[in-house]
Each structure stands twice: as C-alpha cells, then as structure tokens.
C-alpha cells in the first residue's frame, strides 16, 4: 500500500498550499479574525461579568478560553482545507491532480501536510494573541507535546474534510456540513465552557466528541487544567486520527472525477 507513496508529490502539494496560503492574505485575516473576536469579545465579556463556578480560583475565563479557541481554529482551518477538494473539483484543478501518474495516497498525504502546516501557524498565532491578552503557559517545555496534540487535531479533521468532500458532488452540501458537523463539534468540545457540572445529556455528547479530548489535552499541557487524564486525551486522539485517515483515504481513493 505504501510502495507508491512519493515524498516529491507530498512536497509538491504542500508547496502549492503554502503559495496559496501566503497569497490569500484575506483568507488568513478571516481565519484569524473570528477566533480573535471570540477571545477578545467573549473572553473579555464573559470573563469580566460572570463567574464560572467550576473554574479553580486563579484561572480566569480568558485563560480557560485560549486553548479552546486554538482547538476551534484548528477544527475550522483543517475542515476547510479538507473540503477545499470541493473547490478544486469546481475549478477543475482536481482533474489535473488525479490524472497524474501518482498514487492517491501521496496526494492525500500532500493535502494533509499543507493543511497541518497552515493550521499550526494559525493556532500558534492565536496562542500569541492569547499571550498578549494575559495568557501564561504553565511550562515552556509543554509546548512540544501541545504541538503534537495540535497536529493530531489538524490531521484528523483534514482527513474528515477530505472524506466529506470525496462524497459530495458539488458545493451545495457545504453549508450543511458547516451547520451540522463543524458547529456542533465546536460547541460540544468544551472549548467555551468547563465540562464539570454539565447536564448529563450534554456531558454525554461532549464525551463522544473527539475535539473534546484535543481541547482538554491542550488545556492540560498549556494551562495545567484538565478534565480527563492526558493519557486518555492522547489515546483517543490517536485512535480518532487513524480512523479518519483510513476513512478519508478510502473515500478519496474511490472518488470519481
């Protein structure tokens, strides 16, 4: 299965994504603006007017929110990157990619490599903005495992986006995925509120949501505050990541031009 995996092809697709990323300034601004507003407005607004009874003393809401918004940034940018297969289909470039004598596995590898890079850049920009707002990282060394969690989130949701895009004929389903997949995953991930003391149905849904473990892991590493154990966070993320890679590769391999 891996004998046709070509690093040149991965690099080529990655390079294309980087060029597009650097050129589309408005895209970067749009991608950063939304999380920025969440942090600045929701963080400041809720943080200064409400008291979250589940937050330990000394952790204000804004600190709590930063890892959550990083998770959100990764979710959005990765899903969009995966779904950009739809744009390539619409504008015909997918044909150029798929007709080349290279394996689809390398193609999917290249798409994911590009998406992970841009996702990490954006998530870290949000972290920087968070630092500006007063966020303090518990321990600098924790940044390295935190990066791994960010990569796992990015790879998983890019593969999920590719899986959806492989099954969709055109752009019409995009809003549907936005409303019924991306938004629920975001809202149910514990990015915005603590998981302690939730009604049982909400708690149940949050536990089903893979992003919950991503956000929890980031929070554990960056803030030293977590709901689950870091081992559980990592295990579930790795399993989810493998499952999505498998599904994305399978569906993309079988998608028609």
């Amino acid at each position, binding site marked *: 299965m891996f004998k046709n995996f070509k690093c*040149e*092809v991965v*690099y*080529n697709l990655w*390079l*294309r994504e980087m*060029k*597009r990323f650097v*050129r*589309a300034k408005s895209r970067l601004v749009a991608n950063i603006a939304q999380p920025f507003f969440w942090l600045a407005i929701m963080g400041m607004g809720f943080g200064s007017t409400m008291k979250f009874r589940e937050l330990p003393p000394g952790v204000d809401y804004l600190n709590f929110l930063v890892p959550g918004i990083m998770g959100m940034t990764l979710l959005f940018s990765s899903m969009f990157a995966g779904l950009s297969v739809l744009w390539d289909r619409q*504008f*015909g*470039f997918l*044909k*150029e*990619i798929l*007709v*080349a*004598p*290279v394996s689809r596995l390398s193609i999917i590898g290249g798409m994911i490599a590009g998406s992970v890079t841009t996702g990490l850049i954006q998530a870290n920009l949000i972290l920087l903005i968070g630092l500006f707002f007063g966020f303090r990282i518990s321990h600098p060394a924790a940044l390295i495992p935190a990066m791994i969690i960010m990569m796992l989130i990015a790879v998983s949701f890019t593969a999920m986006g590719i899986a959806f895009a492989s099954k969709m004929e055109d752009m019409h389903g995009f809003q549907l995925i936005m409303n019924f997949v991306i938004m629920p995953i975001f809202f149910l991930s514990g990015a915005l509120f603590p998981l302690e003391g939730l009604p049982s149905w909400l708690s149940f849904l949050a536990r089903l949501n893979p992003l919950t473990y991503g956000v929890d892991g980031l929070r554990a590493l960056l803030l030293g505050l977590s709901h689950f154990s870091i081992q559980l966070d990592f295990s579930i993320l790795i399993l989810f990541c493998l499952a999505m890679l498998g599904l994305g590769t399978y569906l993309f391999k079988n998608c028609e*031009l």
Partner: protein
Amino acid sequence: MDAITVKNLTKKFDDLIAVNDISFTVKEGEIFGLLGPNGAGKTTIIKMLATMLKKTSGVARVLDWDVGKNPDEVRRSIGIVFQDPSLDDQLTGKENLDFHARMYGVRKKIRKERIEQVLNLVDLFGKKDILVNNYSGGMRRRLEIARGLMHYPRVLFLDEPTLGLDTQTRRAIWEHIIKLNHEEKITVILTTHYMDEADFLCNRVAIIDEGKILVVESPENLKNMMGEDIISIGVSDGEAFSKKLSSLNWIQGVSHGDGIINLSVKRGEEKIPLLINFAQKENLAVQFVSLHKPTLEDVFIDFTGRNIREENGSTKTLIRDMIRARTRK
C-alpha cells in the same frame, strides 16, 4: 507502431450506449480529429483512452500500452488538455507548469529548461510570472496546452481546444497546435465540433455520431467524395440562359429558381470565366456569380443526414440537395 489502436471499443452508462463498438488507429505523428456534434461520444472516447473512464468492452491501446492494464504507463506517455478549465488560478503560469512537472516526476535539471521551452512554444514566456487569475481565456488555453507538453508526452489529447474562444484566438491556437506537432513530433488527437477546425488541423478525421464512427478519412478525400462544386449565377434572362446551357457538356446538373441558376460542375473556379464569356456571346448580362466548393460540413450532413448545429442549416447545402434530386431523375 501506431500511436493509438482502438478495436470494438464500447462504453455503456446504464442503458445509454455512449460509444458503440468503434475501431480506428492513429499513426504516430498524425493530427487526428474526432468530429461530431455535442453528445456524440467524443469526450467519452478521449476519457477512456486517457484512463479516466473504464471501458465496458473492447480494446484500447496507447503506444502499445493497454489502457486497462497499464494505466500509469499510459498516463506518463500522454498529455491531456481537458474541455473544461483545469488550472490553479491562484498560481502563476510558471508555477502551474512547475506543479505539473513535479507530479510527472520531471527531473529538476530538465524542469526549468522545459518550462521555458513550452512557454515559448505558446508565446507565454513574457507572462510566466502573472497569476493565472489575470489571464484571458485564450492565454489559459495556451497555458493548458503548454502544460500538457511539460512531461514530454508522445501523444497529446485536446478535448475541444478552441471551445468558446474568439476567432483570432482560435487561429492562434491552431497555429500553436500545428507548430507543436512539427517541433515536438507529437501525435495529436483532438475532438471538435467545428468543421473548419477539423479541416484546418487534421490529417485525418473520424466523423462520429451517436457513439458510432461513420467514416475515417482525410478532409481532402472526404470533400472529394462529395463530388462537384456548385456555381450560382444570375443573368438578365434566366429562362433563356438555362435553356442554352444544355449545349455545354461540362455542366453536370442545372436547377433554377428565384432568378438564380445553380450548376454543378467540376473545378468550378475554371468554369466561371467560361460561363461569363458564354453569357456575353448570347448578349445576356451577368448579374452575379458565386462558387461553392464542398466543405466538411457538407460531408458531415451527407454522412449523418443532419447538420451539426441544426439551427444553422446552410442554404448552400439545400441547393446542393435540390440539384442532386434533379440530376438523379
């Protein structure tokens, strides 16, 4: 070796037979045209040859590679220009070519040189660093053709290369196609529903209708098969003139109506002076003369029994049919 061999190729989509048991071969170095109306099955044939679509039955070989068994070898040895645009318009022209070269494993040393070569071939070298977003339709088409050549393919497929382009741009693209056929010694297979395009470019043409090949011939031979030229002439006393014409033995058929006399003759251009002299001798004033030589369009109608674009039925072919009907009596 033939560039392309197709034997009893068939493609079915559920109940629809898009390509129905066709066979043809394309020689190396040829420009070969698949001519037919929209929906005739041209693109389906190209897609099967380019390994983008699986055949239902039959044999299709490109440079002796079977499209079913060796799809990667086929893909490496062909270049394709799709009917619909397929460029990344957020990249420059050069970057699009570079992307393609890397996908096809063109080595770094050759890559740069080759990009320059193909860009010069389609006169885009000066625009190489402009985003494709800012290219005109004709420039995009030319860039796609250049891209199709990047990896030194031996066969180039062009699916409706000039669809939707203006007249000057079409001309320019034709020149480029002929140039690359000569300079790159590449076999070109193109689909088109433009008669003039097939006539201008192709060494041989396959006329396709409803999934079947009706004939494969050179445009010249096809036109010769149609036989005579037609001279339409108007003179002051048409009745008298047409009676006197019977003394001229080189006229193969006469019909008249609405003050126009239509004659079917061979080598029409040489017969026009003779006709004018003849009319003057009879003291009749010639009002107008026109010559119509058979076109590929006439051939097409003759084979398919209908015009390629029904709404543009040409009056000349009607005249031809009238004459045929009369002379056969």
